[in-house]
């Protein structure tokens, strides 16, 4: 339908990622202007329960179940999404700037010969249904406002925490089962397995709260005090390139230009000097706290709150204070 907005659902192990709820909430706001419907597209296997979670957030849920869709591969997802789009002709298709989004959307856009703007930090929709997207370039040194050609759907992937999840969308989605439409002979890739790292914590690119330490942590075992702080805040632990290059933490925890961009609500940097390649990774964090022993550390130029102090003193004290305050 000409003004419909579709959101590709990101899910794992029965849990729907927060970005999907953010996009469904935003899409609801957009659809108020354009008059279309909000549809969640859900591909997977054994996802009946997952679909139920989405019901309050969309007008329609297109549910496609098949063993070939158990884990995301572009081989399996792309032809199916293409046929759905060709049948229903949505105006806009949104997804998270996740490993799936970044893998699928460019290919999908190329296939459909339509426009796609990656990694957006803001979106807006006009009454005519035209999408305008804002995204960072050069690591966040400048931002570009992009518009789309007349081709449909207009596609965008969006960063975490760009939109707020609204719990009261007053929706009750109609769940529509759709058949698997891909040629199974063309499914070339096979996922052998996923090695989970990071325990129960969210990936730093997804977490609402991230605490990180740089070289100031002095030794890998000292990360323990950060883990304890992270536990109290239900946060994930990140780090800098210097620490990863030393071999103290894994690459997946690296925040910065050659690591990950994080869009946390709260980011706390301990013993991080604030070199440009790191701070470019935190530009879209809502609140930034910096603690460093050097009053001239560059990181303070990028923070909202700063403390000049010894992280080995501050972090445990912060953990204790938070335990007290959050109990109330």
């Amino acid at each position: 339908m000409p003004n419909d907005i579709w959101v590709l659902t990101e899910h794992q192990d029965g849990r729907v990622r927060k970005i999907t709820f953010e996009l469904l909430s935003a899409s609801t706001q957009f659809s108020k202007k354009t008059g279309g419907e909000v549809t969640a597209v859900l591909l997977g296997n054994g996802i009946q329960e997952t679909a139920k979670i989405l019901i309050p957030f969309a007008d329609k849920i297109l549910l496609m179940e098949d063993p070939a869709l158990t884990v995301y591969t572009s081989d399996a997802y792309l032809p199916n999404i293409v046929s759905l789009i060709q049948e229903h002709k949505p105006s806009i298709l949104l997804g998270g700037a996740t490993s799936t989004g970044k893998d699928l959307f460019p290919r999908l856009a190329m296939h459909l010969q339509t426009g796609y703007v990656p990694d957006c930090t803001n979106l807006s929709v006009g009454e005519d249904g035209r999408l305008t997207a804002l995204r960072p370039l050069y690591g966040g040194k400048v931002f570009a406002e992009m518009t789309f050609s007349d081709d449909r759907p207009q596609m965008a992937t969006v960063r975490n925490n760009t939109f707020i999840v609204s719990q009261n969308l007053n929706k009750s989605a109609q769940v529509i089962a759709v058949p698997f439409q891909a040629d199974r002979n063309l499914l070339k890739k096979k996922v052998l397995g996923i090695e989970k790292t990071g325990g129960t914590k969210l990936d730093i690119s997804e977490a609402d709260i991230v605490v990180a330490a740089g070289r100031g942590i002095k030794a890998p075992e000292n990360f323990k005090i950060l883990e304890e702080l992270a536990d109290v805040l239900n946060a994930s632990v990140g780090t800098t390139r210097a620490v990863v290059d030393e071999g103290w933490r894994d690459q997946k925890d690296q925040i910065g230009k050659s690591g990950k961009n994080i869009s946390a609500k709260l980011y706390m940097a301990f013993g991080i000097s604030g070199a440009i390649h790191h701070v470019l990774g935190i530009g879209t964090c809502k609140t930034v706290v910096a603690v460093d022993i050097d009053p001239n550390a560059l990181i303070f130029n990028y923070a909202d709150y700063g403390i000049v102090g010894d992280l080995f003193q501050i972090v445990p004290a912060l953990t204790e204070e938070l335990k007290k305050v959050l109990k109330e």
Partner: protein
Amino acid sequence: MEIYVLVKQVPDPEATVKVKTDSELEIENKYFTNFFDEIAIEAALRLKEKFGGKVTVLTVDNRRVDALRRGVSMGADDAVQLTDPAIEGSDPFSIAKVLAAYLKDKAFDLILTGRQAMDDDAGIIGPAVAEWLGIPHVNAIIGLEVEDPTKEVRVIREVEGGKETLTCPLPALFTCQKGLYTPRIPQVMNVMKAMKAQIKKVDLSAIGLTPNDVGSHSAKIKLNKYFPPPKRPPVRMIKDDFPENVRTLVRLLREEAKVI
């Protein structure tokens, strides 16, 4: 193995980039080979060292070929520059079309490139070229194991919360992420050879495209305006002594920023 590596020259991550006008940027003249593409070149060279064959570096650029020379100095055999005035103003999809048009009649086993370019940070080229060529692709790989290049290869990619291992048949395209390999530093003698190396220039007509296929009028996404990054208000330094400063911070985060 016949491997192509798609490379791009981008401003140094430390170069200053400023908004000059709504549609123009002022970029410090410090251009280097895109870091992630260097990783791709390294991956290609290691496969060549293992299985023999040829590595060609390929770029779409009307001005700079230093990234190609970098590839040659690291050990690539050939360098191709796709260049044509009509390409100016192309969006990533048109660039992908140009690359795919060049590659479609080549007998390649593997195409490698970086997971994104550090200028537009888009990550579109890799998957888009793969789609145009009709070959499978995997994004942001951090592991690559090839035992028999005529069969399928094993790749590891980063996903949220873990690492995913996949098999994928060749020919395929992979985009490379930090952690896959550390790019080798070219030796002086090889840099000298690369400085003198012949670079093949190919224009649109040689690959069966017309100016209508590329450029700003065929763009699917258009720039409306540039903005400088949103300015944060100046930092609020908490000046209390320890342990009051910690208490103040928690209070501010709770009551003022409302994030905990």
